[in-house]
């Protein structure tokens, strides 16, 4: 079992490397053609897409590209699935993401021009030349349409959701079919479901209220875990390492905590019992701040862990191309392999911690203090 997992991991690591190489060539080729084709090349392209970039800068750019959410699903060299771009900018604009690869990277839709910023991968409204302005901090100042595109990350969320639905509804059906015994691929996940119930939900929320929160805890655990694992595949997706995703997840935890909280929870925030009355307003302030810091920490923790994991892993794979010799490359490969194993652990650990802390917050929200003065 372990041996097989190691084999698969080796293949994945090798494939990731080949993917990086392919992407490098691809980018190179693309920038060469675009720079030749158009005279009024955007400043964005001038900044990033020139031949005089060193290998190190190319690797940096590649890592950045990998971490970004993109319009279009880039698999490997020359294989890219276009995805629909949906913009709301004083009217609906729908076109295929493959249009960004035509011409100079500027797409005209209903009389407006759009281009992708290389800074953050978002779409901005530009003029016909595709020029994107930057302020002194390097942030884009062009008008930004609201981007409802099915991006790579949205696509992966859909895939993961579909996978989860098939897996778990199959597991659910197998119980009634087999007389209470799990069957099919879902049965490997049954112990995890039981673990979440017995070791995360019940100890933190309590026997009385835990049932209400089980669907959320299970969904969020498997959602984060699966997406983390997808992030380790060479598909180059970085869903859980995207700030918008983690903000959304933490916000859901925060909303559920707030709206299912019992009287005791609010009492402990605004008028802490067992504390001198003069101190209570200050404590209320701190507690109130705490309720906001908690989801913020959830957001940042998941984001930073996955983001940093990808950066480190990609950087070490990139080292192989910098060294270009057997010793350095070999060592980098071994290091990348070891880090992949570590990331496998981190993928599960971060899902676990997110679920655990969510359960902890829910537990605090429904906790009933029987001995008020004991605090």
């Amino acid at each position, binding site marked *: 079992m372990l041996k097989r997992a190691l084999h698969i991991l080796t293949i994945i690591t090798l494939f990731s490397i080949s993917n990086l190489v392919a992407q490098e060539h691809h980018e190179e080729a693309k920038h060469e053609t675009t720079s030749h084709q158009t005279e009024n090349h955007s400043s964005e392209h001038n900044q990033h897409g020139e031949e005089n970039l060193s290998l190190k800068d190319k690797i940096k750019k590649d890592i950045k590209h990998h971490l970004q959410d993109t319009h279009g699903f880039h698999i490997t060299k020359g294989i890219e699935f276009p995805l629909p771009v949906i913009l709301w900018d004083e009217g609906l604009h729908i076109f295929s993401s493959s249009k960004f690869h035509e011409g100079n990277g500027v797409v005209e839709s209903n009389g407006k021009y759009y281009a992708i910023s290389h800074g953050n991968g978002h779409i901005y409204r530009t003029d016909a030349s595709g020029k994107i302005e930057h302020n002194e901090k390097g942030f884009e100042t062009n008008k930004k349409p609201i981007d409802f595109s099915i991006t790579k990350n949205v696509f992966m969320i859909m895939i993961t959701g579909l996978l989860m639905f098939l897996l778990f509804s199959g597991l659910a059906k197998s119980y009634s079919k087999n007389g209470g015994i799990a069957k099919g691929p879902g049965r490997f996940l049954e112990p995890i479901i039981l673990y979440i119930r017995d*070791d995360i939900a019940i100890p933190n929320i309590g026997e009385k209220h835990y049932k209400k929160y089980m669907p959320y805890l299970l969904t969020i655990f498997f959602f984060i875990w699966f997406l983390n694992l997808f992030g380790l595949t060479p598909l180059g997706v970085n869903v859980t390492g995207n700030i918008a995703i983690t903000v959304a997840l933490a916000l859901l935890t925060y909303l559920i905590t707030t709206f299912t909280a019992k009287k005791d929870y609010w009492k402990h925030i605004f008028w802490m019992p067992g504390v001198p009355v003069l101190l209570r307003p200050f404590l209320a302030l701190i507690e109130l701040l705490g309720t906001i*810091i908690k989801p*913020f*920490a959830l957001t*940042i923790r998941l984001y930073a862990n996955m983001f940093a994991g990808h950066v480190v892993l990609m950087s070490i794979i990139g080292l192989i191309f910098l060294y270009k010799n057997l010793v350095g490359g070999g060592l980098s490969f071994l290091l990348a392999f070891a880090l992949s194993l570590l990331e496998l652990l981190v993928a599960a650990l971060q899902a*676990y*911690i997110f679920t*655990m*802390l969510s359960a*902890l917050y829910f537990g605090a929200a429904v906790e009933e203090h029987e001995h008020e003065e004991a605090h």
Partner: protein
Amino acid sequence: MTIPSIIGGGLIVIGAGLGIGKIGGSAMDAIARQPEASGKIQTAMLIAAALIEGIGFAALFAS
């Protein structure tokens, strides 16, 4: 990235590392003393480490 923010980031990482290291060490001690409570200790350790980590990341991003 300015030099003060880099130094600040370093300090944050040192602080968070020390904190998490101490939690991990104490948890090891506790597990060695009471192996039967290892499950509970691990949970508590992870939560404490996660909280410190959260503060560390928040500070890192703020710097």
